[in-house]
């Protein structure tokens, strides 16, 4: 069973008098365990695709299945449930809450998923250990370097053992040494069977993924996989 399957997916925005087709008949299938990079210039529709993949937005038309369920037209509350329980986000700007400690930031998705209230601190500790940030658990984000912040954000993304990690330009704010460390962390997670989709415009970053999807004008222009 595919993890995600699109058929003829479209997203149309109305901006004043103009209608913008951000997605124009996209078909795509992602299987569990895949490591996918979505590449494309700005305005190509890759961000819109990621928002829909991440249950932050709903498509205007087409079919969208997630783990075999039709999820194209579900309520906002239902979408929050998917975000809390099935998706892990990693952002370019890290988006850690500045006043919370690293550990408290990592706990957030557990709080909102309403699962395992009792063992949440243990689960957060496991996630922090996985990204090598145990020694920073009680620090607040402003005391961390960029690479450390992104590793804390990845710990937050994996803490609920999501079906899919979505990373939106995860290395955009990092220096080249940290880019490789973060991408190696993703590669390691992928090797453990974690499905990962990275949205980027950086060919070097895309090179870490096994499958590369190029987008242009709201359509998929190229879909290549490199052999194992």
């Amino acid at each position, binding site marked *: 069973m595919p993890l995600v399957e699109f058929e003829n997916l479209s997203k149309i925005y109305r901006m004043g008098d103009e209608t913008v087709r951000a997605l124009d008949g996209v078909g795509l299938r992602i299987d569990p365990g895949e490591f996918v990079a979505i590449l494309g210039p700005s305005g190509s529709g890759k961000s819109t695709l990621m928002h829909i993949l991440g249950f932050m937005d709903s498509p205007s038309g087409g079919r969208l299945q997630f783990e075999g369920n039709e999820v194209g037209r579900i309520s906002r*509350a239902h979408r*929050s449930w998917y*975000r*809390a329980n099935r998706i892990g986000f990693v952002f370019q700007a890290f988006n*850690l809450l500045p006043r919370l400690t690293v550990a408290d930031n990592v706990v957030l998705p557990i*709080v909102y998923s309403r699962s395992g209230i009792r063992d949440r601190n243990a689960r957060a500790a496991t996630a922090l250990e996985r990204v090598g940030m145990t020694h920073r658990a009680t620090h607040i984000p402003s005391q961390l370097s960029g690479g450390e912040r992104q590793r804390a954000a990845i710990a937050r993304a994996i803490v609920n053992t999501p079906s899919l990690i979505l990373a939106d330009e995860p290395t955009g704010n990092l220096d080249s040494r940290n880019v490789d460390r973060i991408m190696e962390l993703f590669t390691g997670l992928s090797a453990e069977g974690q499905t990962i989709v990275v949205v980027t415009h950086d060919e070097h970053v895309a090179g870490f993924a096994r499958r590369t999807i190029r987008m242009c004008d709201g359509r998929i222009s190229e879909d290549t996989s490199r052999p194992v």
Partner: protein
Amino acid sequence: MNWMLTFYGGLVNGLGEVWAHKFRSLLSMAGIILGVAALVAMVGVVQGMLGEMREYFERTGGITRLTVETREPPDEQAHIAHLSPGMTFRDVEAIRGGSPLVRWIDPEVSLGWRRFSHDGERVNAPLRAVLPDRREVLRLELREGRFIGDLDIADASPVVVLGSWIGDHLFPEGNAVGKRINIHGTNFRIIGVLEPMGGPDQGGWFSRQNRVGLIPVTTGMKRFSGNDRLNSLSVQVADVAYLEDAIEQVSNILMQTRRGIRDFEVATMEEQLAEFRRMERSFTFALGGVAGISLLVGGIGIMNVMLAVINERIREIGVRKAVGARGTDIFIQFLAEAVVISVVGGMIGVMASVGLVVMMQELVEAEQFRIVLSSPAMVVGFLFSAAIGLASGVYPAMRAARMNVIEALRYE
């Protein structure tokens, strides 16, 4: 259960936010603090005032007291109205003889302000001629000596009981009993001096009762007024259950002494009681209005701050939503924060009110005006401030909850 957990988390988070922005939080609480403090202080003032009135009402016989009031006779009796002798001492004798439901009879001949002099010292005070019953009706206590007795009435003796104020002024060392005093040219023997009425913190009616001279009613009629007319007459009924019967009894007796002319009315204290209740109600409304407005202003302040806070934290809202927070979670979080501000403000307000009331008590003591610290008012003020916080937090929290996650994440 889950929302309670979220609310609890919101409260903890809210405390953190309040602590992180101490000065701003204090400013946003200012309205609530002042509102609660003003509420408690005003309730204290009004309760002190009303408490004094209630005490006066009870001290003057309460609901068991009946007052005989003079009225114009009805039109059909106008031409024979002059046949009635009016309110005289004969009324007292008739009621005493004919109404077993009446326990005390309290007539008064008011003899106006008179000069009381002793040994070259003199003071002016009202002189009143009364029966021994006066002592029971007003529950008068004697500092020394005795009150007017039945023999004094029978003999119309030239004896006087002095109020504590006169006693203090003419006999600072005490031992007034047995001494002679000259009241407006007539010599009287002092038989007793009264205890002061009311506490030192009571003013008004109570302190006026201390500046008075009381003589037997018969003495007053014989030596001063020269007739048996009374200025006021009231009776105290033994049992409130027979109030209606007593009114009828007294009315029937008076119809005889007044020769069938209805130039009187037996009034109960119900009117005064109703008046008292009206006053109590209007005070409550005035108080509620002022307190309500100031707390409303406090609520607007909190709403304003919450709207600003939410604008500052759009990014945070986006992040929380991205990791799975529902609109409800965000709503409860910001509502809890508004409640934290108002509840902390309410607590500070209650503390401030204690200081305010104590300060006012210090300041107004000289004018003999009572202010009480009302704990129900503190509780009400506190609960009200929490409710205001809840109400003023709803709109900002709703705005936060409805924010679009993508736009919120993009917000710089």
